[in-house]
């Protein structure tokens, strides 16, 4: 404010540093919750490492397919400003009111003018090594990082550019500016989120693996590009040295991770899974038989459904796993084949492979110390961002938050969850300023065109010479004019440019157009722009249609000008037939009750409640037990030692109980939930037996999980056999004494009944073993394990335990340890794989690392909310990779151990994430839904319920009307896929904007012969 410089004034804007998937997610959550976002990235486009990946585990989803809608949403969001080629040079102020100084490198392109048509790159005579393809391909000196890049603005690589002037000559948009200079900028923001990601480990530092010397040794990220259909070899797995298809590939794990020599002691947390995925996908992509072998130390498949993937990799896909750290790789210079040297069964072995893939770890981003210094945040000893267990998104500087791999190495879903969590934190401190920095668009009142004859206007784009150089655009325009109901047609140099938008608006008004067609590029990126344009001219946006005469015509029939022109005419005729039938659609507006219901009062539920309350929303928190706390009540101390979980629990409970906005119901249960996003009504059965009805806009499921009660290893029959929780309690009480302890891992997990890993037991065993050693160093502690899954920085404690004399012994399923009571003495027998002998010990106590299993209530809660469970009985999110805390049903979210077993910091991150996702709804007075929804004609509906059964979103409900049961679409839940309309036997369901009549008209028109 100009009058006086008070540093109290908060600013409703957030700076997000780093445009990878974490930065993108944080930006979208903030922008959708009423805050202005500045998203900065060092590079020329956003997308990060995920944009380079081929497939993602454990679903083998295509990475670009799931990422690009998010890229487009970020690029188009009215509240997100993307600043590329930018870095922070200074920071002033404090939480709530920061001043950030930026320096931006020049693009040598005027961003506002560049349409991303790409003709410059086609004509550029210079070839440069393409780093998006990890150096395996070539690009031009003027370039975009990848075809789907956002923003789609070209950049000149001035180090490589020879200044020939070709691009300047060819660019019809006059966007080239060779003498453009870098710029400085100052931003005012209330909080900052750091999401700068990670730097892949430099594999040349492990010279024994030959990377950089042997062409057929590649890194895992290079291999992602090799696998990708858009990569240098078009998705064929080929050897870089000779382009031959490999028959045998070795994957070497832990390159630059768990490595004391290099100083990267930590585990990079994602490599086991991506290594496995790359092996599986390589086998899929190779027509001949491919042998894939993974050399690993521990297979850390600790995430949700990861072990099931591991099982399939071994069984169904036949990937071979060898537990051994590879000592070195040498090359046969004649063939380019590689010899992998390793030790198995204490015997040195050498095996020949055609190719070696190094699973490289994650390092902190480059220049991170400079960034940390400028921002005043502390780094940990590995130079990742320092955080605490109970505040996993908070840096050492108030108002600056962190997410993604910069906080600790992690995979995509964890990064996404933490990003949403960071968004919650970032908006929490500026909640009072919500909506102050954002702009909402106003449109003129909509014209009623229902009584008018269709009057179609067609705008055909030259796209510079991208279309016009192949398709005879004037001829297409002339042809369009002959089509039924087309009253206007013209050609544009760039239909998407700013001046053309103005022109389209004028033509709509001058020619009384009531349907508009643009024949240009893809609706996937450009339809929203044109829809806005017609709306600005007073037309309903659904009266717009688009046809793709570039990506699907001129670019793919470049040498067949005549045929391409004919096809462009066919495409225009086809879409015009549809346009004629287009109907205005209303976007349903639904009101939102700004109240949250949270089921479960453990650390996740309480954290989510506090976050929502901090945002200014009322919360009902329902806990089944008599007191709040959940699983956290059983945790006596932490592996990371610093925080006292008991104190933290008490302060959490106190904050929740003292918060006026949070209504706590203990000893209570949610018994019924009706309604949909924004408008739920639920019944809570309270402790006194009375039912209370509440109204709320969202639901967060935080039902937690429970410790498995073992049936194995004499548990329950002998008091000397206890679980980790029981041990922890004894240690905390000071009643634990033993000279010899054996811990057995994976009890009730990774077996036939429960194939997945319970994730937290390895850390728990290490934690308790260290505690025992601390009190009594002479006590012998054995940990019998299948894989020690001490991922991330937990690896440090694994090492510490080993250094302190905890004995770790690997066991296989075929040779599980045996526990027996022989004349009152406990006896544990197990196979010692190094000395290759059965070993017997006589411990005082056997500790079972019992799995964490789903809350038995989940089934009931899932049925009530109509949300799915996994086979194991945990809740199943909308998408394993990019929507970790959402359900497919809008307005319902999940977090914590209801999702899968996890550590406290991970539960807190998810809880904050669920709160952020919920805020995107609760912060709005009303929600505008997509207009493309299904509609039921009650006259035709026979009430057969097929649609109700088919709808994956629960958007169809059956209603009684005049004695008939009829289907009814809850517009707020309908996503417009059209599956119901297709299945309806009486054709009672109409699918907005994709009606059967429209599609059939399109079919018919397409199959007419072009006649111009």
């Amino acid at each position, binding site marked *: 404010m100009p009058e006086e410089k008070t540093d109290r004034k908060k600013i409703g804007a957030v700076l997000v540093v780093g445009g990878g998937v974490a930065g993108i997610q944080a930006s979208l959550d903030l922008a959708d919750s009423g805050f202005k976002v500045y998203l900065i990235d060092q590079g020329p486009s956003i997308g990060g490492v995920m944009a380079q990946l081929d497939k993602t585990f454990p679903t083998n989803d*295509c990475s670009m397919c799931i990422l690009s809608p998010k890229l487009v949403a970020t690029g188009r969001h009215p509240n997100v400003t993307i600043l590329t080629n930018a870095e922070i040079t200074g920071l002033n102020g404090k939480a709530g009111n920061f001043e950030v100084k930026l320096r931006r490198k020049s693009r040598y392109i005027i961003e506002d003018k560049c349409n991303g048509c790409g003709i410059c790159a086609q004509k550029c005579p210079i070839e440069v090594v393409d780093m998006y393809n990890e150096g395996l391909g070539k690009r031009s000196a003027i370039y975009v990082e990848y075809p789907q890049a956002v923003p789609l603005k070209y950049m000149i690589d001035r180090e490589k550019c020879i200044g020939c002037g070709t691009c300047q000559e060819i660019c019809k948009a006059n966007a080239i500016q060779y003498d453009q200079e870098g710029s400085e900028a100052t931003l005012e923001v209330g909080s900052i989120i750091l999401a700068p990601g990670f730097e892949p480990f430099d594999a040349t530092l492990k010279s024994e693996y030959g990377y950089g010397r042997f062409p057929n040794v590649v890194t895992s990220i290079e291999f992602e590009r090799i696998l990708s259909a858009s990569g240098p070899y078009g998705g064929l797995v080929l050897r870089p040295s000779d382009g031959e298809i490999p028959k045998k590939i070795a994957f070497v794990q832990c390159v630059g991770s768990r490595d004391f020599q290099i100083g990267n002691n930590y585990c990079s947390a994602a490599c086991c899974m991506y290594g496995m995925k790359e092996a599986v996908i390589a086998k899929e992509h190779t027509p001949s038989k491919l042998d894939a072998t993974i050399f690993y130390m521990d297979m850390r498949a600790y995430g949700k459904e990861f072990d099931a993937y591991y099982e399939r990799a071994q069984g169904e896909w036949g990937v071979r796993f060898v537990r051994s750290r590879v000592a070195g790789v040498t090359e046969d210079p004649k063939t380019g084949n590689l010899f992998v040297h390793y030790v198995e069964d204490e015997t040195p072995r050498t095996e020949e492979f055609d190719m070696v893939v190094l699973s490289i770890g994650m390092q902190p981003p480059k220049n991170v110390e400079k960034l940390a210094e400028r921002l005043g945040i502390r780094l940990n000893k590995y130079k990742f961002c320092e955080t605490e267990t109970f505040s996993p998104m908070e840096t050492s500087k108030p108002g600056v938050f962190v997410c993604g791999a910069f906080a600790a190495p992690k995979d995509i879903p964890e990064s996404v969850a933490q990003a949403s969590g960071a968004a919650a934190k970032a908006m929490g401190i500026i909640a009072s300023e919500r909506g102050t920095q954002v702009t909402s668009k106003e449109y003129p009142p909509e014209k009623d065109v229902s009584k008018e004859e269709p009057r179609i206007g067609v705008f055909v784009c030259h796209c510079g010479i991208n279309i016009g150089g192949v398709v005879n655009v004037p001829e297409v325009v002339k042809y369009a004019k002959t089509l039924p109901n087309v009253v206007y047609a013209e050609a544009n140099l760039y239909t998407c440019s700013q001046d053309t938008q103005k022109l389209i608006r004028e033509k709509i008004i001058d020619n009384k157009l009531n349907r508009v067609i643009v024949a240009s590029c893809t609706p996937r990126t450009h339809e929203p722009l044109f829809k806005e344009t017609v709306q600005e001219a007073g037309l309903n946006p659904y009266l717009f249609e688009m046809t793709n005469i570039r*990506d699907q015509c001129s670019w793919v029939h470049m040498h067949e000008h005549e045929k391409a022109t004919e096809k462009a005419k066919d495409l225009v005729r086809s879409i015009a037939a549809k346009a004629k039938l287009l109907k205005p659609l209303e976007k349903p507006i639904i009101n939102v009750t700004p109240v949250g219901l949270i089921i479960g009062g453990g650390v996740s539920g309480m954290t989510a409640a506090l976050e929502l309350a901090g945002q200014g929303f009322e919360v009902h928190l329902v806990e089944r037990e008599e007191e709040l706390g959940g699983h956290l009540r059983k945790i006596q101390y932490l592996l990371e030692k610093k925080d006292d979980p008991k104190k933290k629990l008490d302060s959490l409970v106190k904050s929740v109980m003292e918060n006026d906005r949070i209504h706590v119901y203990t000893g209570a249960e949610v018994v019924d939930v009706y309604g949909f996003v924004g408008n739920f009504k639920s019944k809570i059965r309270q402790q006194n037996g009375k039912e209370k009805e509440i109204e709320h806009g969202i639901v967060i499921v935080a039902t937690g999980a429970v410790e498995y009660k073992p049936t194995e290893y004499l548990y329950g029959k002998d008091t000397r056999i206890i679980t980790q929780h029981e041990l922890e309690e004894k240690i905390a009480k000071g009643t634990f004494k033993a000279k010899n302890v054996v811990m057995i891992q994976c009890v009730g997990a990774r077996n036939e009944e429960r194939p997945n890993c319970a994730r937290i037991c390895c850390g728990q065993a290490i934690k308790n073993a260290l505690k025992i050693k601390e009190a009594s160093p002479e006590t012998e502690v054995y940990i019998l394990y299948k894989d020690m899954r001490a991922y991330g920085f937990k690896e440090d404690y694994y090492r510490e335990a080993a250094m302190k004399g905890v004995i770790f012994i690997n066991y296989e399923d075929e040779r599980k340890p045996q526990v027996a009571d022989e004349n009152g003495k406990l006896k544990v027998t197990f196979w010692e794989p190094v000395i290759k002998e059965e070993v017997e010990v006589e411990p005082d106590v056997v500790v079972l690392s019992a799995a964490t299993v789903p809350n038995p209530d989940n089934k009931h809660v899932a049925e009530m909310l109509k949300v799915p469970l996994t086979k194991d009985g945990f809740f199943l999110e909308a998408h394993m990779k990019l929507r970790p805390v959402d359900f497919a049903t809008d307005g319902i979210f999940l977090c914590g151990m209801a999702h899968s077993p996890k550590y406290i910091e991970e539960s807190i991150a998810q809880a904050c994430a669920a709160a952020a996702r919920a805020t995107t709804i609760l912060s709005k007075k009303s929600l505008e839904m997509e207009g493309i929804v299904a509609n039921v004609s009650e006259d035709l509906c026979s009430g057969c319920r097929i649609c109700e059964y088919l709808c994956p979103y629960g958007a169809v409900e059956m209603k009684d009307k005049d004695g008939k049961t009829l289907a009814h679409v809850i517009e707020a839940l309908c996503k*417009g896929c059209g599956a119901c309309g297709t299945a309806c036997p009486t054709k009672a369901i109409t699918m907005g904007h994709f009606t059967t009549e429209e599609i059939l008209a399109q079919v018919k028109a397409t199959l007419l012969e072009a006649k111009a």
Partner: protein
Amino acid sequence: MSDEKKFEPKIIGFLCNWCSYAAADLAGVSRIQYPPNIIIIRVMCSGRIDPSFILEAFKDGADGVLVAGCHLPSDCHYISGNFKALRRVTLLKKVLRDFGIEPERLRLEWLSASEGDRFAAIVRDMVEEIKKLGPNPLKAKEVEA
């Protein structure tokens, strides 16, 4: 028209918005060339594709129909539309012969957004196959009649 030699099949492609249409776009961005015999009709989901659309297309003279959606099992933007398409197209293929249409004229493919080259290859392959089959037999009958 000297129709016999120069038979150019007309193919309708019903493509879902999220993966397969994106694959067709990527073929364009990557400038992968394929014959211009296919006209794409965009729908939001392969689960929207009604068998009647396909039958109408054949009735109206299409020489081939491509239905494409997101990869099984879990790429579908609408969770399970691809499975619905799979069931419907599989069934339809079984009855097409009864209508006098070779089932080879109808193809169901799963395409991810990064498979531009595969999209182009499928179109090339379809055009070749259908050229061997000749024009839509329903069209020939109409001419006879």
